[in-house]
């Protein structure tokens, strides 16, 4: 029984960390319409910077400044933000698919730099030896994982409240206005380029925060953590959950990561012994089917975006399904 609880704590931690990243992407795509194909670059920048700033000194590569943990994590977010600002300056004039290709390229470049810049990032061996915060006090076992989970959940709630407040604020309305019709927004005196950059950087900082927590939890990061598959996973979570809806983004993270891990567990437990060797491939097929099925039958996601029209004296709610796009 304790095993089940212990595993659930572990699972929830990872799902919540991914959930934070999905919420960051939701700000970019769901609210502003920026097709970020390089989620993993922000995630990786957060993870690498956090471990480099907070880890112990090591030979072979730079880093190991041993900063106190909150500073290291803030440094991770800052690194993700700076990277996003540079990338945003260069690419945000691109629209939709072009932006996706450009940012995807940035993510691939990021992975290659991490892999090859051995003297800075430890190369393919990655960065290890990070001391997780409070470990000396709580040990390495179950207690630690519970405390860490609480910390991650608190962070998740803070990010959630921040984003919910942001999207109903005038700024949130402006994001949607730019998403729907940039020319119209411009005609009203808004500066779409600047607003898009702010949204992109903010979303990336949130994704970087998730990356920092991820690196902390595993006390390790290597180029294998920043492969394009992670971008795909986070996108799948957002699509299934429902773009434009912060709740949906969170739900998507838990559902997709749950399906990803549960299918592996279920197959290893229930598949016949001859099929055991093929469960890895079967799992990929199942996950693909879920995503394709969602796109076919419920493209707006499980929790579609709820658009609120704020006018004095009346609050009408309409959903996209009713033709209000």
């Amino acid at each position, binding site marked *: 029984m304790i095993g089940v609880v212990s595993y659930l704590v572990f699972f929830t931690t990872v799902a919540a960390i991914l959930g934070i990243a999905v919420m960051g992407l939701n700000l970019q795509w769901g609210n502003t319409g920026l097709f970020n194909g390089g989620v993993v670059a922000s995630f990786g920048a957060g993870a690498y910077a956090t471990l480099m700033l907070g880890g112990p000194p090591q030979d072979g590569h730079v880093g190991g400044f041993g900063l106190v943990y909150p500073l290291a994590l803030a440094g991770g977010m800052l690194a993700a933000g700076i990277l996003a600002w540079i990338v945003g300056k260069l690419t945000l004039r691109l629209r939709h698919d072009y932006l996706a290709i450009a940012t995807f390229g940035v993510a691939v470049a990021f992975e290659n730099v991490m892999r090859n810049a051995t003297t800075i990032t430890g190369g*393919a061996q990655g960065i*290890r030896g990070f001391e997780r915060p409070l470990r000396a006090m709580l040990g390495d076992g179950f207690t630690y994982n519970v405390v860490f989970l609480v910390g991650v959940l608190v962070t998740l709630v803070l990010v959630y409240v921040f984003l919910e407040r942001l999207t109903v604020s005038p700024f949130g309305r402006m994001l949607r206005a730019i998403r729907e019709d940039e020319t119209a927004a411009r005609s009203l005196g808004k500066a779409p380029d600047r607003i898009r950059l702010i949204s992109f950087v903010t979303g990336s900082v949130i994704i970087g925060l998730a990356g920092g927590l991820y690196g902390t*939890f595993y006390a390790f990061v290597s180029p294998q953590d920043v492969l394009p598959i992670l971008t795909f996973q986070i996108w799948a979570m957002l699509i299934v959950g429902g773009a434009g809806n912060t709740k949906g983004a969170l739900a998507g993270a838990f559902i997709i990561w749950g399906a990803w891990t549960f299918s592996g567990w279920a197959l290893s437990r229930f598949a016949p012994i001859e099929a055991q060797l093929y469960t890895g491939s079967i799992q990929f097929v199942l996950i693909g089917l879920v995503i394709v099925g969602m796109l076919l039958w419920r493209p707006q996601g499980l929790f579609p975006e709820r658009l609120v029209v704020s006018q004095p004296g009346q609050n009408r709610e309409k959903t996209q399904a009713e033709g209000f796009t």
Partner: protein
Amino acid sequence: MKKLLTLAAFAAGMSGLSVSAHAQDCTTKVGAVLPTSVDWGRPIAEVAQFAVDQVNEAGGAAGCKIEMVLRDTQVDPKVGVDAAKALVDLEGVNVLLGAVSSGVSMPILTSVTAPGGVMQMSCCSSSTAFTKLSEEGKTNGLWFRTFATTAVQSAMGAKVASDKGYKSVAILYKNDDWGQDMARLIAADFAAAGIEVTGSVAINDAQPSYRAEVTEALGGSPDAIYLALYPNEGTSAVREWISLGGTQNMILANSLKSDEFRDNVGLQYLENALGTDTASPRVASADAFKAAYVEKFGSEPNGPGLANSFDAAMIALLAMEAAGANASGADIAAAVAKVTDPDGAPITADVAGVTAAKETLAGGGTVKYQGATGDVRFDANGDVSAPAVIWKFTDSGTDEVEYLSLGEVDAFIASLKK
């Protein structure tokens, strides 16, 4: 339980039959996290299961039948760590086999097995980072790997080059943790042997062409080329190398010991190619593994990590036997020394060997496991050294050119260090 075990071993010994009825009453689970969704990962899992089957045929370990619960890592650290955690928490395993990639094995070690007190034995993770982590005391003695550290491979590469009289060598290496390690070590060994390294070029996976990399390596017009690559990109890179007029004097790491590589490049281009590998000792057990493998799978065990995976599973299960029933992961890890004791009774890596080992262990003795990769002997960091062999390709597989015993390997490595 111990009495039962002694009895079972006694009965098995007396009758010469391998199956003990008592052993089938209970089941102990061991976990395996391997990349089964990747083409080269599946045989590694198959051969681990094969080792488990043999132990079960000999009556299981610690009085119970062994069930290997296999999970796929998808070569994704998140997925691999989750799978390992599920195996430890939900299936209650004390022994974890895997993973293959160091980038997956490392987070499993730091966040699941070391904190959870579970023994982890990898067949194939070669990163030198594990040795460092272990020296820092962070693995709690729970980490082992049957993949001889890259040091043996690279020293043998230098030996081939100096024996053949090559004056200059270029290096092409796979751009991952193993390849980067390999490239660094071999460059140092070449330098120590007085051979010039004209260039060291990284080869990334799945590129449509390696012309740029190959051209760069050709630039120094070396006498020979050293290849630390896997069959897929190795084939493409070597084809371009030869078509651009590169030398056919090649030195190959053991990862290229594959029929696929030979067939796709063409044997006529590989006549001057010499490979290095860690070797089986001249004992029956290595041949037994080969024969058993051919009988079971219908081909020779020519693939990366197969013999290592078999030994990892075997040693883990023997250690479980030595640790006895209800042993914790740390107990089992401590018992590894009992089954890889250089002064112990030698045993072979098959049903008969396992039966003999159980008898010896039940009597309080220790055994020397002679497996598919040789006399496996772990040092304090869970690393292994091994005898080495120099090989070349033939029509039907590979032929041995020279064999170096563990002593000769160690002596050569020492001579390079001077």
